């Protein structure tokens, strides 16, 4: 047992860090570090640079363009990129539909889509949730009917993250209305430029446009835009969601945010004393740091087990639960740290290149909005209540 990185692992970390420092555009780094809005082309540019270097898809098999890293290397890569304020990778192509296409897609789909995911030539979004079915996906009502050589899709999706940037969406729709709820669902790959696809923004309480509704009105797609077999969409969706959880703990990012929190709390003062040196706040930060240390080690233990061929089980639910709670506590403490200056609402200040006079400290503007926004992380990807249900039932046998 040895909890230190090996010399090889340390060398790998150094290599990644050096490369990121040389290749991450300064403007993008600054925007991520200071919680500014990223522009679409900054996401795409960064993903292309990674892909060109062979690092576009850390968790993919080498045959599809993955780098063939060990789980610990993947962890180091995530950690270093977060430390260096690289944009968080978008999961929709890389970690969601990509693995599904690899496992269940046709050879033609694999050849066409996978390289375009690597280079972000396609921007994917996810068409699962519907207004009536959040945690209960099996109750979805969108439908697809085969009409000659085409599927005709009708329905409405919601909470579609960054659909405003996407050109393609993977959609669950019901194709068999007689079968049991889970059995009659299929998965489709839909070009969003097609007639009948409409995207409507949903503005969240932080004032941001991050999620959308997507409407399908008689959208006609070629017959071969179905994934795998008709009626197997539920199986593919479960496969996809189990992959989505990988990395959902966002440990690297939380470590970077913890450093930011400490920096803010060292700058803010109470009666002239740095906030971080006042015992109440100091101990709250310390408590959070310990939880994060524990979660990182738990994650490393899971990765080690994976290396020995053990599939992730309860650990994935656990990482989602604790990881999301830690992310929320971070946003809460950041907001607390700035005291009354959490209150001014200054959405302009989140634009890159904005050079107006900030209201209060220059780091204050995003903090309360982030706190509001981050309530989502215990809701999406299977709410934490669902995660606990699964943990209790599947792992503990209750």
């Amino acid at each position: 047992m040895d909890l230190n990185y090996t010399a090889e692992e340390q060398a790998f970390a150094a290599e990644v860090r050096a490369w990121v420092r040389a290749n991450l555009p300064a403007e993008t780094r600054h925007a991520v570090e200071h919680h500014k809005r990223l522009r679409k082309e900054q996401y795409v540019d960064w993903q292309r640079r990674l892909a060109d270097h062979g690092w576009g898809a850390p968790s993919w098999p080498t045959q599809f363009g993955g780098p063939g890293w060990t789980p610990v290397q993947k962890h180091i890569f995530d950690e270093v990129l977060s430390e260096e304020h690289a944009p968080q990778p978008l999961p929709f192509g890389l970690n969601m539909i990509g693995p599904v296409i690899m496992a269940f897609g046709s050879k033609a789909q694999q050849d066409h889509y996978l390289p375009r995911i690597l280079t972000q030539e396609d921007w994917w979004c996810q068409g699962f949730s519907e207004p009536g079915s959040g945690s209960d996906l099996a109750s979805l009502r969108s439908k697809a009917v085969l009409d000659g050589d085409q599927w005709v899709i009708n329905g409405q999706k919601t909470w579609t993250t960054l659909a405003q940037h996407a050109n393609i969406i993977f959609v669950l729709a019901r194709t068999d209305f007689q079968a049991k709820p889970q059995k009659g669902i299929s998965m489709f790959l839909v070009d969003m430029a097609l007639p009948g696809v409409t995207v409507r923004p949903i503005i969240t309480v932080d004032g941001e446009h991050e999620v959308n509704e997507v409407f399908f009105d008689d959208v006609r797609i070629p017959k071969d835009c179905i994934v795998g077999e008709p009626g197997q969409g539920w199986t593919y969706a479960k496969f996809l969601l189990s992959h989505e959880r990988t990395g959902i703990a966002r440990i690297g990012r939380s470590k970077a945010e913890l450093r930011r929190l400490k920096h803010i709390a060292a700058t803010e003062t109470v009666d002239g004393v740095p906030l971080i040196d006042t015992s109440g706040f100091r101990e709250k930060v310390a408590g959070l740091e310990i939880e994060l240390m524990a979660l990182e080690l738990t994650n490393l233990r899971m990765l080690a087990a994976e290396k020995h061929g053990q599939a992730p089980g309860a650990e994935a639910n656990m990482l989602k639960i604790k990881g999301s709670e830690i992310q929320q506590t971070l946003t809460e403490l950041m907001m607390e740290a700035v005291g009354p200056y959490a209150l001014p609402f200054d959405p302009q200040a989140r634009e890159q290149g904005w050079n107006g006079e900030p209201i209060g400290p220059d780091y204050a503007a995003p903090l309360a909005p982030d706190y509001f926004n981050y309530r989502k992380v215990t809701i999406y990807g299977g709410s934490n209540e669902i995660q606990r249900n699964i943990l209790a039932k599947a792992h503990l046998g209750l």
Partner: protein
Amino acid sequence: MDFSLSDTQQMLRDTAERLVRERYGFEERKRILAGPGGFSRELWATYAELGLLGIEVAEDQGGIGGNFQDLAIVLEAFGRGLVVEPYVPTVVLGAGLVNAAGSDAQKADILPRVVGGEAYLAFAHGEPKSRYTLAHVATSATADGDGFSLTGDKAVVLGGDVADLFIVSARTAGKAGDTDGLSLFLVPKDAAGLTVRGYPTVDGTRAAEVSLRGAKVGRDALLGPEGGAFPLIAQALDRGAAALCAEAVGVMTALNELTLDYLKTRTQFGVPIGSFQVLQHHMADMFIAQEQARSMAILAASRADSADAAARSRAISAAKVQVGKSARFIGQQSVQMHGGIGITEEYVAGHYFKRLTTIDRTFGDVDFHLTRFATLAA
């Protein structure tokens, strides 16, 4: 020991609740927020007509001569409606300070205008480095001819963007942190050397950064004793905290009702989500949190004008702690139980949540009041 409402209180409650019900629907509120200044001058006039702007003001100045508990009744109703008009800055803080410290002339000049809805006030006290500490005032007031010249910066002044008249705390002696040497000044918005930068806050209400650069006021601008304003400041902020406690109880009650209704009507897996035991227990705890906060808000209101300043501050700090904890728990749990819809701008739950969060950050957060409570002897 008597928790029953007086006739006046019953009337105030009915009035304020009806007003909120009839004039403060979610869509109506959205229109108000989108309008000029982000609040409704028309509704403000209605508040004046209904006597809501002069609850504590003596009858001979046009008010109804009530007490803080009467005010708290209105604030709870306003909380249910997420009322955005600058009631706390103008009525609770501003008129409250004039009432407490003003000369007869000052009262006669200002209070009738507040009662009539013609003047908006704001208390410009907090500063960029003061956080929640009461005496951390660096703004200086130096003698200048027969008056004073004020220089300094005031941070997150609630209602500051619309105020006609500011009550500014400044130092006539001593240094930031001293309780002695503080004075209050009445400064009109058009005073030379005073600049106001207004902005919305995260909950949709308004505030401002106020900058004073040699702003000149006469000796008659002094509100209360020169150098002895600390007790007035402490009381004003205690009253502000007590007011927000009452308002927060209204918000929490409305949010709990909304969430309970959602649990009963939203179905997943073929059943109402309120049939899941985990959500039932969370809802039970939210109800408890609400009632514990209600008890403490009642205490805070009953102590807001207590002659014993230490006992007042201790009770109000206790209330602000309980309200802050309850507000956070209820706000977070409600959003969680609603799922995605809970954090969209188009649905009211998230707005309750934001208002509760704002209240928790205003006039001292949980940590500040917990420490203050602990250090004030019982």
